[in-house]
């Protein structure tokens, strides 16, 4: 009997030893990178708290962001369309991916994403970690698959090293790829424009035209381009020319609600100077052409935004007002953010 007990306790001891082996200490100091939340910005997207940027997570994410092996033929990286000099957008009408294939929509800029509740023109993504897979597998973007990507980079010394430092394990994983890219993107915060410096009383002042533009902006634009992000993050049909693709339904593509047809997320106006052309599929070459369109009158629709409906389907603007608004919008340009 005693022998049996001895044997049993020995077995238990072995089992407990096995268990302890599973827990591995993280050998690298990988400090969290605090996100400096600019004054007046809305609160962080709740998912940021589940994937807080770290030193090596962001470093890995930045490397992956520029990695062309994410695409089937190693020609397209995230940065191919999301160029820093264009506030992480590009200047094509619609996105151009692998083999010159043209995507459905205009590339959105990547800025202040940590504060956004919805991603993409139609808000189909609510958690940034779920976005990187979309371009990787999309025919018109990178036309690859996550296992194909992992296969290409898993034996790369630099990636193994960064995965070890960021996540404590040198194995390249799908979740590690998604999380690190999101971590990098969370750090892309733009809040150092002339407008911001004036708001913070750092000595800058608006020119006369900018100041007039700000006044008109507050009367005629700020209902939608509100908050310090310069978007209310709502989905609106503003009667812009409609994308002829049968794939396009705007927000209704996600919700299935007819009232959301051809509604798009109000875009931020920060760094708009760098992101021409404008509109969900690049309908407008310049800021002036957008304002001209609003002034001339927009397309009617059952679900046209009530603000436009109440004003005869247009936003009347004088030529002087347009010029001033554009001057003001240019004060939202953050030259350090775009590296200029």
């Amino acid at each position, binding site marked *: 009997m005693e022998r049996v007990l001895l044997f049993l306790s020995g077995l238990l001891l072995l089992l407990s030893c096995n268990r302890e082996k599973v827990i591995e200490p993280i050998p690298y100091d990988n400090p969290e990178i605090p996100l400096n939340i600019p004054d007046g910005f809305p609160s962080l997207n709740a998912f940021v708290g589940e994937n807080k940027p770290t030193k090596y997570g962001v470093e890995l994410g930045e490397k992956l962001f520029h990695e062309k092996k994410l695409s089937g033929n190693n020609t397209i990286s995230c940065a191919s369309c999301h160029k820093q000099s264009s506030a992480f957008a590009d200047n094509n009408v619609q996105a151009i991916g692998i083999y010159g294939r043209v995507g459905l929509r205009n590339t959105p800029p990547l800025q202040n994403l940590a504060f956004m509740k919805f991603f993409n023109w139609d*808000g*189909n993504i*609510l958690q940034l970690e*779920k976005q990187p*897979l*979309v371009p990787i*597998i*999309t*025919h018109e973007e990178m036309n690859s*698959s*996550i*296992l194909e990507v*992992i296969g290409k980079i898993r034996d790369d010394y630099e990636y193994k090293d960064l995965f070890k430092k960021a996540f404590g394990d040198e194995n390249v*994983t*799908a979740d590690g790829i998604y999380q690190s890219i999101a971590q990098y993107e969370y750090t892309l915060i733009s809040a150092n424009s002339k407008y911001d410096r004036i708001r913070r009383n750092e000595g800058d002042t608006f020119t006369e035209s900018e100041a007039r533009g700000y006044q008109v902006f507050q009367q005629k634009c700020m209902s939608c381009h509100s908050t310090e992000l310069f978007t209310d993050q709502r989905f609106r049909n503003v009667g812009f020319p409609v994308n002829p693709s*049968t*794939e*396009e*339904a705007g927000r*209704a*593509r*996600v*919700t*299935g*609600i*007819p009232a*959301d*047809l051809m509604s798009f997320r109000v875009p931020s106006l920060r760094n708009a100077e760098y992101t021409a052309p404008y509109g969900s599929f690049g309908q407008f070459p310049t800021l002036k052409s957008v304002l001209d369109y609003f002034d001339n009158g927009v397309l009617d629709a059952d679900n046209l935004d009530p603000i436009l409906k109440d004003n005869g389907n247009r936003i009347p603007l004088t030529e002087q007002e347009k010029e001033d608004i554009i001057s003001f919008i240019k004060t939202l340009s953050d030259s350090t953010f775009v590296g200029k």
Partner: protein
Amino acid sequence: MKTQKSYLLFLVCSLALMSCSKNDDNPVANNITLHFNNTFKNTTIVLGDASSSTATVNTSAEGQVHHFSELKYVISNIRLIKADGSEIPYNINDLDQGATVVDHSKPQTLDYVLSNIPVGEYGQLKFGLGVRPELNTLDEVRFPDFYAAAGANDTQMHWEWGTGYRFTKIEGFYDTDHKEMSVHTGSTVEGTNGEPDTYTQGVDAYRDITLTLPSHAIVGEHAPRITINADFDKLLSGKTNTIILGTGNAKPSTHTAANMVLFVDNLGGNGSSDLSGMFSVGSVEN
């Protein structure tokens, strides 16, 4: 007393051996084959291009002629219900082992073999048209085989922008001038529909189907074959909706969640009063 005990032990042992040898003759498990018969009403569909003279032409309740050039759908979450009410789930959390793309142009996909089904009499069959939200993430790492099968160039059942699977993909032509029609369905739901605590946005296009078998499928020495009719006449002339194809819904926005639910409810039922949609059981062969 001691001899009696030994005798009993011997008896028990031989009984055990006997039952073992019996099991060799009568297996503990066998296959069930699900055969999918895609029809317009009672006629098995023949696919064809716009000007095909051999394609099966259907006429909707509203008098619209139409035929298909492509017809695919995903079946998953298969459960078999025994006559006593107990439920045998078939790899319901494993898309590689428990889900399939039925592609009408590939005869081998019309038969889906469920392996290792416990012996017994089965009176009911449940399955999903599409993929449950929690598994509908295009997770290639977790389910590489199903991901590859669904994403193949000639299958195209990935819905990339929604990072989910297409649940049905129908291409075809309607009206006498053969205008193109194209119906794709899939889910965009975040959280659970009808649960305000979790639901944030989107449409759940997954539909759970319940079919009562006309006679029991008896799994034992023989492997039953159940023929499931999928009557695509219901696409336009369903129990829930009567649809007229036109510029607003035949091609534009049927790739999207807008308008899609009308088709989904016709094909897979509305989830409440109609739990079978276009599906019915044609026959059970034991």
